[in-house]
């Protein structure tokens, strides 16, 4: 196993009932403390791959290794951020954010204290007793992120986290996400279909081919992360990465 690999997938294959082959022989290494994105045309099985890593979907072939151990289901070292937010509509923000700890059996007082801290961290202080239907898309996704942070998992898996929010919110959220992650040792795997988003966020970009999904190319844009967001978007390495990805992806677009 690779030295600093925290997540490793080997020979993953997945065929759904009905014969659709989503993934074929996918082998990847996700380095610890880095942000990787899974990028590809729609229907390339990137969300399937993420859910296999999360332990939510059982692959037909291959293995998932987390921290040097083979896993067969969800585990406390991984937390998932859902595309559709997956917030409990009958629970307020505080209870939603604390839900992971509630399932683990952490006492109410303790879990709410931890949850409050993370709610403030994602910029939702004051909304603790609001219900999901009172929040905007961007705010809902912040709740989803806070919930993932609250269980203190080392690995955060995000399924198109910015696709259901508007462009301005998306940019702001991306910047805040990078800012948030810069200070802690989290490994993040993000599924996206946005080339700019992948180039902007990632240490490692995994490009997948259309169905069945296989690894097409791995790109590591050499972007200086200490720069501000606006400088990054004008950085030559960023622009080169965007261009390189597009050159590969456009052959898959019909």
């Amino acid at each position, binding site marked *: 196993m690779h030295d600093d690999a925290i997540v490793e997938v080997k020979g993953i294959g997945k065929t759904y009932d009905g014969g659709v082959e989503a993934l074929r022989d996918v082998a990847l290494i996700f380095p610890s403390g880095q942000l990787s994105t899974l990028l590809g045309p729609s229907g390339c099985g990137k969300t399937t791959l993420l859910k296999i890593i*999360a*332990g*939510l979907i059982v692959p037909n072939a291959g293995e998932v290794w987390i921290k040097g151990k083979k896993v067969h289901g*969800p*585990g*406390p070292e*991984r*937390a*998932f951020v*859902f595309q*559709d937010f*997956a917030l*409990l*509509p*009958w629970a307020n923000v505080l209870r939603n954010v604390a*839900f*992971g700890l*509630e*399932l*683990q059996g952490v006492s109410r007082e303790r879990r709410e204290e931890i949850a409050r801290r993370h709610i403030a961290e994602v910029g939702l202080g004051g909304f603790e007793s609001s*219900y*999901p*239907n009172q929040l905007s898309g961007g705010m809902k996704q912040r709740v989803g992120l806070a*919930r993932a942070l609250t*269980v203190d998992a080392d690995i955060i898996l995000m399924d198109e986290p910015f696709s259901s929010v508007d462009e301005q919110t998306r940019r702001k959220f991306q910047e805040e996400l990078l800012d948030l992650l810069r200070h802690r040792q989290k490994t993040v795997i993000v599924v996206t279909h946005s080339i700019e988003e992948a180039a902007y966020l990632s240490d490692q970009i995994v490009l997948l081919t259309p169905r069945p999904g296989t690894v097409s190319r791995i790109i590591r844009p050499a972007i200086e992360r200490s720069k501000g967001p606006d400088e990054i978007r004008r950085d030559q390495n960023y622009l080169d990465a965007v261009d390189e990805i597009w050159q590969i992806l456009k052959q898959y677009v019909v």
Partner: protein
Amino acid sequence: MVFSLAIWALAWELAGRAELSVIVPSLSRIVVAAMTVLPTEKFAAAALISLRSFAIGMAFALAIGIPLGVLMARVRGVGRILGMWVNIFISAPISALVPILMAVVGIGETTVVVTVVLFAVFVIVLDTQIGIVHADRSLVEMARSFGARPYQIYAKVLILSALPEILAGIRLGAIRGVKGVVIGQLLVSIIGVGELFELYSQHFLMEEFWALVLIVFLFAFAVSETIAVFERRVEYYAATR
């Protein structure tokens, strides 16, 4: 709603006063009759026995209906095998089965309880099943991703998610349960409110008869409205699912 009730009450009163038929006395005389029926010992005894049958029957209907509905939604085989039967029984004329019940469980309170169960249980099963089937699958996935054990998925996600449908099922079941009590007792005809109905109609005491109908109707309405209060409380999240 108050307006429409008032119009009907007025129409009834006028029809009664016009003495179009001996079967329809005026509303005011029915209300007066209700006042004389209510304090009698005979009514108290009949109401008690009827309420007891209703309560026991509904308890069984809930205890059987909700778990069965959940099971049918979660285990595909069970849903397939029982789904058809539930749909048949929900529309079947269950009153016709009561005489057979009498032959099996005897003539008495047990028959009435079983009738209440049969009247109420199927709509509870069906609504619970629909609620669980339509529960947001991504919420279940979310709970699994945070390590939820199976019982936690049921208690903390599925049941709460299906609560609007389950409550609707309980409300409809309770209304049918009231019908079950009356029909069961009418057919057995020696106990409870059913005995009173039989007594009044045989002696042509139309005012008392209609008074009893009014009381039973008001009871069913009160039960239904009480459950509807809970339904409205959970409605805010039903709309956002």
